[in-house]
């Protein structure tokens, strides 16, 4: 049974869907069990809501969820299959399966084989003989029918080939064929390949009862059609079939060892067939690239192998005279660099001095050095140059007046006659000579000889035995134009003319560019090509020209690109590549794409070396009664596991919902979840500066208020707050000062400048304040603020005693980062004893502890040395151990929070008085002590 693309293997089970209403009815009747809680104030609860609500049924969504779960399980048991393979090839008689196994088939090879296997299975059922034609075999294809088992074995052995498909051979074979195939299945790649029309024509001619045409998806088939090494970047031409929607991909570059070097993303606009991706890399890195491939393509067309031809060579230029700079467009270097630039990297030396320029350029790792008309080389430079050439460098020299005048020049390929000759002048008898055609031995072999090139002046070589061998190009009269000789590993090449147009018009011609390119190519391949030859040809003949036996070069397969675009070892059927013939090597079944040669020197053969021209096969070409299908995946998609998984998911949801309804989730999970969420939020948003979150309000600064330091100990902070509230109330009722409500400050963030007095209960909880916070406190104290430290440990030790309690220890830690002046217990005549009340003790909850203040200043001279100044004569630090806030603290109803020790109500009053005195002292400073002098002042004024 099948509905649309959905097929049920056991459709009868679907009838059990009719029990769903029953399940619905049952579910509605069973409410979730309540949680049972003992709760003493149930009586109060009854007053809240007299009507006890008991939902007799589950909420509708829970029922729906469960029904859905049941339905899913039933449907899953019916074993639905999505997109089940149903393409049957019917009829009797021989069946022909034409299977494309060209380069495009890598990505969908599995589907292709599955489809073919399905077809074979059907053929076996109907006992049809089958012929399998693989398209890459071309004309060699065997059309005789075989038994299904044999064909299956062949099918299993078949792999995608990294080859272009030529269908003409197959079409021809079909025409010659005598078997009357009643059914034909063409597993095509969907591209308009060579010979497709012939094939279709012959198929039509055969007129089978049934023709089935399978195509693959083409929209993600991208190929690299060409790679060019431009001066700026390695440009990768990408191509795909026409009429495809927009798509994108990524080209990755790998080095010789398969490590990825770089990657570039590209994207095709809709209907666009070709684009170019640029790999912008330094030249050194670019030269490392051995392979470019498009990610996730799995086919040979998406891979391009690079060899020496794609390397950009670095060429160094040195000119003989700086006079060249005066007329830059006539300078020899200008011509050379223009000619070299497209395919190599040109370096010109900035040093005017040749002796400096040569080592500098050699340092820069140039592979070719061009010397334009340099006569005598300085001795050191000459030696360096010679060493470099011996080591494999390519030295290209151009003649000129200086070279012609030079003597004892060793760095020339042939011995030169002094002076040179000129042709076609008034005093010469010869006419300007054109170029002769290039020798077969010459690396210039194959270049077209420009007919209009004429040489009017040149330097001449001394005739010698080996002159012809050393000649790469000559004039029609036989005099050499370009000579070369090998020195060690390297070469010396001499152009017998100048690099500018003064001696010949060769530099103006296109041949000049080609010749230079060949020379540079020789330079890079100089060693490599030599090695190639010595490893392939049995007897190197020692000829100075490297392409002497070019026709004979056969390169063994090195690494092959297989049908999936990966590099593999060469197979047994592969043949060596023949190079140097008149035709460029082609990709065939014997010589598939890959590298040929040795690992040091190889030539890359690619599937595409130019535009690939991928086109879809026009579907109107197919015979009218063709059945078109797509490749089938394995057996369709069985939906059973997915449906069961969905049912399980719903079950989990159901459990969660039940838990939630029972209220368990809220209590147990939510705090954890909230913590997790808050953690995430906290991680995503950097914690806001605490000053923003602290309730600091500028309006608060308009009134005087007491402040305490928040220690992080909630109990302690609360006592501090209640204590300062109690003190504030006391001060408001007894003095003319009416402070506003006290605040807790965070010494790390809050601005302290607005508070005259900071009450700091010392707590051992948490870490001591850091250096930054202490710097703020230090600034606060130096600017005139006072801090009242309270160790609250009179019972266990007390400040200033021998015994060190934990709080005192902590206070020492805090104060260790402050500059504290000498301290003393409040002396009898201190202002603190008379700032408002007359006091001789300063109790808090405890009585015995002393109040310590800065030692009173005796004389002015001492003050300069004091790090913490007594701002306005007020001690910036006061230390007590009496737990003053504990004595001041009152609850909202006016009752004290903590008892005093000993339980003496008067002590509490004295504690408040102490507080008043301290506040008055910090606010008025030495005002009271000044009052002592009032009679004396009045007396003076009276005078």
């Amino acid at each position, binding site marked *: 049974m099948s509905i649309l693309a959905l097929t049920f293997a056991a459709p009868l089970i679907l009838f059990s869907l009719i029990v769903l209403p029953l399940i619905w009815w049952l579910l509605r009747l069973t409410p979730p069990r309540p949680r*049972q809680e*003992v*709760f003493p104030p149930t009586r109060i609860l*009854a007053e809240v809501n007299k009507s006890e*609500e008991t939902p007799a049924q589950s909420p509708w969504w829970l029922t729906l969820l469960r029904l859905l779960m049941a339905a899913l399980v039933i449907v899953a048991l019916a074993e639905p299959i999505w997109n089940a393979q149903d393409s049957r090839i019917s009829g009797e008689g021989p069946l022909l399966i034409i299977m494309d196994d060209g380069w495009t088939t890598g990505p969908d090879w599995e589907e292709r084989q599955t489809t073919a296997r399905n077809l074979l299975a059907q053929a076996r059922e109907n006992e049809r003989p089958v012929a399998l034609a693989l398209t890459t075999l071309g004309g060699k294809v065997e059309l005789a029918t075989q038994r299904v088992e044999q064909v299956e074995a062949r099918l299993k052995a078949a792999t995608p080939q990294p080859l272009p498909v030529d269908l003409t051979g197959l079409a021809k074979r079909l025409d010659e064929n005598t078997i009357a195939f009643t059914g034909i299945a063409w597993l095509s790649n969907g591209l308009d390949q060579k010979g497709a029309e012939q094939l279709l024509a012959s198929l039509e001619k055969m007129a089978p009862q049934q023709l089935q045409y399978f195509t693959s998806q083409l929209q993600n088939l991208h190929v690299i059609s060409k790679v060019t090494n431009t001066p700026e970047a390695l440009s990768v031409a990408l191509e795909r079939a026409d009429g495809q929607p927009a798509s994108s991909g990524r080209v990755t570059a790998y080095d010789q060892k398969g490590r990825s070097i770089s990657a570039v993303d590209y994207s095709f606009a809709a209907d666009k067939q070709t684009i170019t991706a640029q790999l912008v890399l330094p030249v050194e890195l670019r030269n490392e690239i051995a392979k470019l491939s498009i990610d996730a393509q799995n086919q040979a067309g998406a891979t391009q192998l690079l060899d020496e031809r794609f390397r950009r060579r670095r060429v160094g230029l040195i000119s003989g005279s700086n006079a060249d700079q005066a007329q830059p467009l006539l300078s020899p270097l200008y011509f050379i660099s223009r000619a070299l630039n497209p395919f190599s990297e040109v370096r010109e030396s900035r040093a005017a001095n040749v002796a400096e320029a040569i080592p500098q350029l050699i340092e820069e790792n140039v592979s070719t050095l061009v010397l334009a008309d340099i006569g005598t080389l300085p001795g050191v430079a000459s030696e360096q140059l010679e060493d470099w050439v011996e080591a494999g460098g390519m030295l290209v020299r151009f003649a000129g007046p200086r070279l012609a005048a030079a003597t004892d020049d060793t760095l020339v390929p042939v011995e030169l006659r002094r002076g040179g000759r000129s042709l076609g002048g008034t005093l010469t008898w010869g006419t300007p000579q054109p170029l002769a055609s290039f020798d077969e031995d010459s690396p210039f072999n194959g270049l077209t000889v420009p007919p209009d090139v004429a040489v009017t002046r040149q330097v001449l070589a001394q005739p010698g035995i080996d002159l012809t061998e050393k000649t790469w190009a000559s004039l029609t009269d036989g005099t050499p134009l370009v000579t070369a000789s090998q020195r060690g590993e390297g070469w010396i090449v001499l152009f017998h003319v100048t690099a500018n147009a003064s001696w010949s018009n060769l530099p103006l011609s296109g041949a000049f560019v080609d010749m230079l390119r060949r020379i540079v190519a020789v330079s890079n391949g100089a060693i490599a090509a030599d090695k190639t030859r010595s490893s392939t040809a049995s007897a190197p003949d020692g000829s100075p020209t490297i392409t002497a036996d070019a026709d004979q070069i056969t390169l063994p397969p090195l690494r092959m690109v297989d049908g999936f675009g990966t590099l593999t070892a060469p197979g047994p059927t592969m043949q060596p590549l023949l190079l140097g013939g008149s035709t460029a090597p082609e990709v065939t079944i014997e010589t598939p794409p890959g590298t040929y040669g040795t690992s040091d020197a190889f030539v890359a053969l690619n599937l595409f070396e130019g535009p690939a021209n991928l086109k879809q096969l026009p579907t109107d070409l197919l015979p009218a009664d063709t059945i078109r299908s797509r490749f089938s995946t394995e057996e369709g998609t069985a939906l059973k596991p997915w449906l069961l998984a969905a049912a399980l998911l719903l079950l989990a949801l159901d459990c969660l919902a039940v838990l939630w309804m029972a209220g368990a989730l809220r209590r147990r999970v939510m705090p954890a979840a909230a913590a997790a969420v808050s953690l995430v939020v906290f991680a995503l948003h950097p914690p806001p500066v605490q000053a923003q979150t602290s309730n600091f309000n500028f309006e608060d600064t308009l009134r005087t208020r007491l402040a305490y330091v928040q220690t992080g100990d909630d109990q302690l902070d609360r006592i501090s707050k209640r204590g300062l509230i109690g003190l504030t109330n006391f001060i408001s009722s007894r003095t003319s000062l009416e402070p506003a409500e006290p605040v807790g400050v965070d010494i790390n963030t809050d601005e302290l400048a607005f508070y005259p007095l900071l009450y700091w209960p010392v707590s051992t909880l948490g870490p001591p304040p850091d250096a930054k916070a202490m710097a703020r406190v230090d600034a606060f104290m130096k600017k005139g603020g006072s801090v009242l430290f309270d160790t609250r440990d009179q019972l266990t030790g007390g400040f200033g005693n021998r015994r060190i309690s934990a709080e005192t220890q902590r206070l020492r830690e805090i104060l260790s980062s402050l500059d504290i002046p000498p301290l003393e217990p409040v002396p009898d005549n201190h202002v603190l004893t008379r700032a408002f009340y007359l006091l001789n003790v300063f109790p808090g909850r405890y009585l015995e502890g002393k109040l310590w203040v800065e030692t009173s200043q005796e004389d002015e001279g001492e003050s300069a040395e004091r790090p913490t100044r007594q701002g306005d004569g007020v001690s910036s630090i006061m230390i007590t151990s009496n737990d003053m806030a504990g004595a001041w603290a009152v609850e909202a109803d006016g*009752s004290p929070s903590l*008892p005093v020790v000993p339980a003496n109500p008067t002590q509490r009053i004295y504690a408040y008085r102490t507080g008043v005195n301290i506040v008055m002292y910090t606010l008025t400073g030495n005002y009271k002590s000044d009052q002592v002098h009032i009679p004396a002042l009045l007396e003076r004024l009276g005078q």
Partner: protein
Amino acid sequence: MALNIGSVAPSESGSGVLGRARERAALIPDLLIEAQRIANTVTSGWHGRRRRGSGDTFWQFRPYQLGESLTRIDWRRSARDDHVYVRDQEWEAAHTVWIWADNSPSMLFKSTTAQVSKQSRALVLALAMTEVLAKSGERVGWPGVTNALSSRVAAERIAAELMVAKIDEDLAFPSTQNIRNRSELIIISDFLEPIDTTLTRLNAAAEQGIHGSLVHIVDPAEENFPYSGRTEFEDPESGQKLTYGRAETLAQGYATLFQARRETLAQHCKRLGWNYIVHHTDSLASTALVALHTRLSGEAMA
């Protein structure tokens, strides 16, 4: 389900509680009951009342006033100048304090957020208070269990009596018939009886001339109502069961009612001049003890 918030803890009494009570009591300074509330009792205590009266300790010299007994004149002092002085002693007197903790089944409730059950906390508070008061020389008693005891070891004796005494568990309020005029009564309970009943009893006690302090023990779950979802609530005293589909919807109304009850109680106590302290079982027992102590010491700010 194991996720229940509330549970019924086993009833506690005896030496374990006494030990914990001792710990608490050790933290509290000697308790002094405010003198103005002291009845005209002749029983001597050990602690001075900071005012003149009958006692052994010298308090002050004051000028002799006409009509006073001549025997009270301190001749040694009077001989120093022209005035006649009377030597006053500091008044040292003891006070009777009755302490009673609720023992009804609702007190056995303990939620997961609380440290102990309400009953346990109430007993600890009661015995700790007993210890403190006994140390101060006060007479302490447990209505319905003991008479007022004047003993340093009153706490032990009360604890022992409590262990053997058959306490009527349904008793939601101490019987005040043995309590004499002007005594102090400390009631530690969760006050879950209907509020009108409680108020009537408080009035009756106040009319007897008793000065009282109520310590209202509250489990955090009773105040915050952390219940949600479908829940069946059971009253441990009456066995009443209520089922709600969405308990969280009740939270608001419940909190309002609960606070209103507490407020009513607090207002009533204020009117009677009694002390009223709320104590949560998730905080330390000593906080309640300190609060009770400061209230009894009469240190409320003028």
